[in-house]
């Protein structure tokens, strides 16, 4: 099992009354509510939290990209990755991911990842995403071209990483006479590419293709959905004629560990409820702008999750625990939850979000230490034992 410590870097000291008065903490929530002095402290403590992952024995520490939102303070996640490279020696650093369709020059993404790959001597893992629906509002990029731009940008970046330049790239959205990036990537043939996803059929088909076999990470979903999507990936791989490895399957979720289940639930409740109600909540128009999904996927999503999407800000800790969207409990409980997911899917990647919502540093730190000391070794030993047999 490979364990990742993942951070969103939320802006915690948010004026909640004003934030709840807006339709969302994305796009429209005034940045008057952001105090740079508070923000500077947040960056310092969050970078410390991530860097600590190396000494605690995590395999990977991870950041990601979000724009114009209190949900995450990393519009440019590579800047944080660059700082983490200087703070660490061995741990892998994942940027999961960069939102390809949101940029007009994807070669800049190829270049920046190549720089990080060189600076870290091959310690980076990259991630490619389409960006969340709200980011088509905040960047102005046309969501109806989201899939086309994602696939073109991906092909362009792979070409830049793997074909000796200069080459030419001919697309509908991106055209380059010269593809010839300096530096080249450090890892051969290129850094690993993860695909975090909410489980769209198109993404599963595409990521599992034998030419790619990209690790697929289901984020923020109920236990039932995670099992369904990961097994969809397995089935898609079988249809492609191969068996997916556990290393291709991952689960990204908020996790909290304390001495007892009761204590864990009590301490994690505010963080979990603010994560979903205050920070993540978006209207349907923001989350699913026209064309962001195919008409078929949109219709299916609205049939399956329409009620929930139309009633944002109603998440409760109990509901999140019952559905398995949030994992909180004693080390034993958390171990059992992960083992159960492993049995159901064969996954070999856990992306643990150990600080979420307004959760303060001291709780996040203690939970992270307990997770590292009392949850991870159980699975890491299991892999070692299995390898030895």
């Amino acid at each position: 099992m490979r364990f990742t410590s993942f951070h969103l870097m939320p802006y915690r000291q948010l004026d909640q009354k004003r934030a709840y008065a807006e339709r969302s903490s994305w796009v429209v929530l005034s940045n008057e509510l952001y105090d740079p002095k508070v923000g500077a402290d947040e960056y310092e403590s969050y970078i410390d939290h991530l860097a600590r992952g190396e000494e605690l024995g995590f395999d990977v520490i991870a950041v990601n990209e979000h724009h114009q939102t209190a949900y995450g303070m990393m519009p440019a996640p590579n800047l944080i990755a660059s700082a983490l490279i200087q703070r660490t020696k061995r741990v892998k650093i994942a940027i999961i991911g960069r939102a390809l369709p949101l940029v007009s020059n994807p070669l800049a993404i190829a270049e920046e990842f190549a720089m990080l790959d060189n600076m870290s001597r091959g310690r980076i893992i990259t991630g490619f995403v389409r960006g969340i629906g709200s980011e088509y509002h905040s960047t102005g990029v046309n969501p109806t071209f989201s899939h086309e731009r994602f696939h073109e940008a991906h092909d362009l970046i792979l070409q830049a990483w793997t074909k000796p330049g200069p080459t030419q790239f001919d697309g509908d959205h991106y055209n380059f006479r010269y593809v010839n990036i300096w530096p080249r990537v450090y890892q051969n043939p290129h850094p690993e590419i993860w695909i975090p996803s909410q489980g769209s059929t198109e993404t599963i088909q595409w990521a599992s293709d034998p030419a790619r076999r990209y690790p697929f990470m289901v984020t923020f979903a109920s236990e039932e959905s995670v099992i369904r999507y990961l097994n969809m990936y397995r089935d898609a791989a079988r249809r492609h004629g191969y068996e997916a490895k556990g290393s291709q399957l991952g689960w990204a979720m908020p996790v909290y560990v304390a001495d007892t289940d009761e204590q864990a639930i009590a301490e994690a409740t505010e963080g979990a409820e603010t994560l979903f109600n205050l920070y993540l909540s978006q209207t349907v128009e923001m989350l699913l702008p026209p064309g962001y999904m195919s008409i078929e996927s949109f219709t299916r999503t609205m049939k399956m999750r329409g009620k929930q999407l139309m009633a944002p800000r109603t998440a409760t800790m109990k509901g999140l625990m019952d559905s398995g969207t949030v994992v909180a409990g004693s080390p034993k409980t958390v171990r059992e939850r992960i083992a159960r997911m492993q049995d159901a899917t064969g996954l070999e990647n856990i992306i643990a979000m150990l600080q979420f919502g307004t959760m303060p540093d001291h709780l996040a730190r203690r939970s992270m230490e307990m997770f590292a000391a009392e949850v991870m070794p159980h699975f890491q030993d299991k892999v070692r034992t299995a390898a030895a047999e």
Partner: protein
Amino acid sequence: MNDTTSLNAPRIHPARLLREGGGAPILFLHGAGGFPGRLPFFAELAASHEILVPEHPNFGASPDAPELRNVADYAYYYLDWIKQLGLPRLHVVGHSLGGWIAAEIAVRDCSAFASLTLIAPAGVRVKGIPTGDNFIWSPEESIRNLFHDQNLAAQILARTPTEEEAEQMIRTRLIAARLGWEPRWFNPGLEKWLHRITCPTLLLWGAQDRLLPAAYASAWSARVPHLTHHRIGACGHSPHVEQTAATLTHLRAFLREH
């Protein structure tokens, strides 16, 4: 004549078509909200004119036409279509997105136009005057913001669309976003060519338009050579729906002259 039929434009795709009345033909190009159906406005015009209201390809019930990806594509599509219709002296009326398409047709070739009427047209932006954001508005906010008369908005909201209509609205919203998301509801290259609209032109704008502000009329007035402009009071983004009588009065007076 009173029918909704399919037609085949040259090389391209069939669309729903409302065609009724007799007399000098009027082509109405609908807005981003989709095929408007048989509005009282059309029924009134059909008393003196032949009215044609095609559903744009990719909208609502019309089939997919993936090659139509921007407003210029729609302009060329309709140039072909108008040629195929073979109607001389066509009065063209365009609302909102339909007004933008009409203007894009006219700057290319308005030789078949007897006149052009633009009702709250998209297509041109006035810097410093923000538009409404119909893509972030909820369906209810959209209706409330599109109409000045909130009783009318409430009447529209009281009606639940059928499943078929709801599906058509999803398609319409997708193609509307494809055409108008960015730059938001305008083509930066259009304004400088507006002098090529050489036919008589009528511009109508609702005084309380919260999507495309009535102040946007100034950009059209400044550039279109033979333009008459009226602002319609107590009216939002759809004067032909909200102030049908006032819109008809201006339009009929204009059509009588041309």
